[in-house]
C-alpha cells in the first residue's frame, strides 16, 4: 500500500468503516518503517473529526445506579497497570526469567558449597546463596500459579532471536497487544494486558499472508494475573512466518472470518 492509497482510506479507517482486511492493511502500512508522507497526521485529523461526531447528540444523563456500579467494580480492582503493554509484559517476564536463572544458579552454588563443606559451618557465600535460593523459591512458587502458557512465553522470550512486536490498535480501538515471535523456533505467542474479558465473546487470533483471507489461528485466554495470552497455531507457522498477526473480538467459539479486528501488526522481519 502506498501513502496515497492509505490516505484515500483514512476517513473510512477513522470511522471504523473498513473491512477487517482493509483495516489490517492500513495498520500494517502505518507500522512500516519507511518515510511516510503525512499518513499519521492524516489519521490524527480524521480521528479528531470523527471524535466530534458524538457532539451532535444531546447528552443524556445515565441513572444513578451506573456510577454506583462503576465504583463497585473499580473498588474491587487493583490500581491500573503501568503504561505500555510491551514494557509491562517484558518486564514481568524478564523478572520471572531472572528468578528462574537465579534459582538455578543459586541452587547449584549451594549444592557445590555443601559438597565442599561437608559438616562444616556454611561460609558467608553459602549463606548468601541459600538466601537467594529461598527468594527464588518464593518467585517460583508464584510462577507455578501463572499457568503453562505464561511459562511458555517466558521461555520463548529467553531464546536467542526472539522479538517482541507491538500489535497496534485498529481505527482508534482502545486495545493493544504484543506478539513474542521467534522465526527460527516457528513460534509466536500474543500477550495483552488491555483486552478485558467480554461476556459471550472470545478474542481470536489471525494469521495474514499477503492478500489472502486471514486464517484463524487460536484464541487469547485470560490468566489469573489479568493478562490475556495465546499461542498462534504452530501448524500455520511451519512453512513460513506470516506478514501480519491480528486479534479480533468474535462471538464465543470464534468465527471463520474476522468481524471486528482490534489490533494488527507486521511480524515478518
Amino acid at each position, binding site marked *: 500500500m502506498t501513502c496515497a492509497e492509505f490516505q*484515500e*482510506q483514512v*476517513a*473510512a479507517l*477513522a*470511522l*471504523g*468503516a*473498513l*473491512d477487517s482486511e482493509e483495516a489490517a492493511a492500513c495498520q500494517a502500512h502505518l507500522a512500516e518503517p519507511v518515510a511516510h508522507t503525512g499518513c499519521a497526521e492524516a489519521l*490524527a*485529523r*480524521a*480521528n*479528531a*473529526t*470523527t*471524535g*466530534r*461526531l*458524538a*457532539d*451532535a*447528540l*444531546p*447528552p*443524556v*444523563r*445515565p*441513572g444513578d*445506579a*451506573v*456510577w454506583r*456500579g*462503576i*465504583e463497585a*467494580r*473499580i*473498588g474491587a*480492582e487493583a*490500581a*491500573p*497497570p*503501568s*503504561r*505500555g*503493554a510491551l514494557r509491562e509484559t517484558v518486564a514481568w517476564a524478564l523478572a520471572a526469567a531472572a528468578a528462574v536463572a537465579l534459582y538455578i544458579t543459586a541452587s547449584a552454588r549451594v549444592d557445590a558449597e555443601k559438597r565442599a563443606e561437608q559438616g562444616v559451618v556454611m561460609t558467608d557465600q553459602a549463606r548468601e546463596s541459600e538466601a537467594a535460593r529461598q527468594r527464588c523459591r518464593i518467585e517460583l512458587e508464584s510462577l507455578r500459579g501463572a499457568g503453562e502458557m505464561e511459562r511458555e512465553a517466558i521461555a520463548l522470550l529467553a531464546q536467542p532471536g526472539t522479538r517482541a512486536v507491538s500489535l497496534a490498535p485498529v481505527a*482508534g*480501538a*482502545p486495545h*493493544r497487544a504484543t506478539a513474542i515471535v521467534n522465526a527460527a523456533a516457528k513460534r509466536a505467542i500474543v500477550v495483552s494486558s*488491555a483486552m*478485558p474479558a*467480554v461476556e*459471550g*465473546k472470545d478474542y481470536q487470533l489471525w494469521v495474514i499472508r499477503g492478500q489472502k483471507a486471514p486464517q484463524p489461528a487460536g484464541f487469547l485466554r485470560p490468566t489469573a494475573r489479568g493478562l490475556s495470552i495465546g499461542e498462534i497455531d504452530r501448524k500455520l507457522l511451519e512453512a513460513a512466518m506470516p506478514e501480519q498477526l491480528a486479534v479480533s*473480538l468474535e*462471538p464465543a467459539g470464534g468465527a471463520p472470518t474476522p*468481524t*471486528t479486528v482490534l489490533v494488527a501488526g507486521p511480524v515478518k522481519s
Partner: protein
Amino acid sequence: MTVPRPSAAPAGPPARDRALVADAARGVAAALRALYDRHAGRAMAIALRILRSRTEAEDVVQDTFVEIWRRAADYDEARGGVPAWVATIARTRAIDRRRSRDSAARATAGAKAEPEPDRGPEPIELAEKRQDRERVAEALAALPAEQRTAVELAYFEGLTQREIAARTGDPLGTVKTRVRLALVKLANLLAPVEGGSA
C-alpha cells in the same frame, strides 16, 4: 500506604481532562468520578443512539468508564482529545453489543428492542457544550444528503462501507468517495475557531 492525591487542576477543558486522566492512571478514584461527570452524558447519548435501549446503554456506559479506569495509563493524547477517546470506547462497545444482540435477534425473528422508559434526555449541558453540539449538527446538515447518510450509517450504526453500499444500493466505489469527501468537508467545517477550544 499513601492514597494518591489529585494533582492541581490547570485551566481549560482539554488540559483539565488530561490532568484527570493522569490522576485516574495513578489510582485517584475522584478523578474518574470527575471524568464521569464531564463525559458520561456523551457516552450515554452515543450508546443510546446505537442500542435504542436505556438499560443496555447504561451497561455500556458502565463498561466504558471501567475500561477508562483500567486503561488511563495508556491514553495517548496524540490520538485525540479525552472526549473523543471516551466516545470511541463507548461507540465500540455499543456496536459490539448491538451486533451480538442482532445475531441473537435474527434467531428469534420479530423480537423487538426493549421498550424505553419514558424519561427523555435531561439537559445537563453547559452553554459551551450546547454551542459545540449545534456546530457539529450544522456541519452534518451542511453535507450533501448522501454523504451525511454514509457518515451516520458508519458512525452511529457501525456499518462498513461494503455494508453501507448493500443498505443503500449504491456502488461500493461511490460510497467510498462519499465517506472520504464527507470527512474532508466535516474537518474543514469543524476546524477550531480562533480562540476556541478544539
